[in-house]
């Protein structure tokens, strides 16, 4: 059985890659939702909402993803036990949750920054037309801010893809985990890790292409070349 060639690695690695893709997909989606919730929350006129958003952003930007992951997977169940609630999360849920919360904290700053960067004259025009605060935010400011968020969001999504490798540490069989298993079995590190690098790189390319498509979709009103 030690006669495996690189083509034999592929099905195993592909299985792991599929897990990585799903982790990336869901945590990017949930992370984006959290980004908007906390980013707009930080700009809210409601003090409680503002405070909650700031606390979330600072906690999750200020601690490492690895610790967040371990905390959700290993510590949370014990906390649950102490208060009599079952908070034992399946690895995939803990993984997606940690990744989403982490990316959401960084994304929130992107959302806040982009909304604040909308020209003051746009807010004044909205006021002169008697738009409410809410209408101004959702109908005037956000549609202009979203295209500005796309390049940093692209970076965050790529970052997220790379970060998924950490979930192998809570026994999720993602690409990194499969690679490690194969290596233990065959000792063929060069081939395996070259394949793994190529696969991560390929996924990053696809992700960037998707983000470009999305960026074009939300920025249709802008002059070409911007």
């Amino acid at each position, binding site marked *: 059985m030690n006669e495996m060639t690189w083509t034999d690695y592929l099905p195993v690695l592909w299985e792991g890659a599929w897990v990585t893709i799903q982790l990336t997909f869901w945590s990017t989606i949930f992370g984006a939702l959290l980004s908007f919730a906390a980013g707009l929350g930080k700009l809210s006129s409601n003090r409680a909402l503002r405070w909650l958003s700031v606390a979330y952003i600072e906690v999750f930007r200020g601690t490492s993803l690895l610790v967040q992951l371990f905390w959700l997977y290993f510590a949370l169940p014990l906390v649950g036990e102490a208060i009599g609630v079952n908070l034992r999360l399946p690895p995939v849920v803990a993984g997606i949750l940690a990744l989403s919360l982490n990316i959401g904290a960084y994304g929130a700053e992107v959302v806040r920054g982009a909304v604040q960067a909308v020209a003051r004259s*746009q807010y*004044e025009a909205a006021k002169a*037309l008697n738009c409410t605060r809410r209408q101004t935010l959702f109908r005037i400011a956000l*549609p*202009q801010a979203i295209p500005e968020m796309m390049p940093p969001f692209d970076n965050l999504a790529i970052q997220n893809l790379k970060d998924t490798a950490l979930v192998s540490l809570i026994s999720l069989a993602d690409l990194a985990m499969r690679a490690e298993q194969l290596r233990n079995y065959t000792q063929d590190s060069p081939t395996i890790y070259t394949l793994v690098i190529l696969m991560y790189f390929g996924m990053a390319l696809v992700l960037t292409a998707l983000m470009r498509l999305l960026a074009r979709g939300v920025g249709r009103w802008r*002059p070409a070349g911007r």
Partner: protein
Amino acid sequence: MTEPIIRFEKVVKRFGDVTVLDGLDFTVAPGEKVTIIGPSGSGKSTILRILMTLEDISDGVVWVGDEPLWHEKAADGTLKPASEAHLHRMRTRLGMVFQSFNLFPHMTVLRNITEAPVHVLKVGKAEARERAMGLLDMVGLTEHADKFPYQLSGGQQQRVAIARALAMRPDILLFDEPTSALDPELVGEVQEVIRKLAEEHDLTMLLVTHEMRFAREISDRVCFIDAGAIREEGAPEELFTAPTEERTQDFLRAVLDDG
């Protein structure tokens, strides 16, 4: 005499330590077309911005019709600072055209005009659209209804901005140097639209401009402001040909030499 539609009563406006309006008294009659002229930094834009509620006041009272703009009448008759609800109600009477147009870049020309009527005034979509097309016809831009602002020239954008302000049916329309950001060859088309408005509508118009010839053509009254107060006002023929104040004479000499 009819009740004024705008009345500034000893209005003071400070930015930090700088006093921009220093006890300004100023009235405008309904339907009147008034131009404000004066040197840079004299407070012209500030007057319009206070009326559009973009800038609050430090002291005094601004009246729009028989209601205070920046105050509400309390039960005992005294004035207290206005709530957002009061400001929202007062703003329905006013509209503004900005020097830099400030169209919404992510909306087509038509949406720029229908957006506020539909979502603020709750006018039906079809009705808002029909009215917007009428306004676009008035400013000569019907064939550009589906374009985005970046596809238009500055003059065209400003004409859309005028249509957008009119779509809210204000009683008072404020123009802050509407042609100053335009290339010289585009100034005429925008002035033409404003002139037509002035001639054909009973809209109250308050215009800040450096175009003295234009001010002369369209205004019922011209006010010269310097250092936060009105120094001289009168019918354009009088003020432009026979100013009595020395400051006015100096200012007019300077700008007319330029032009």
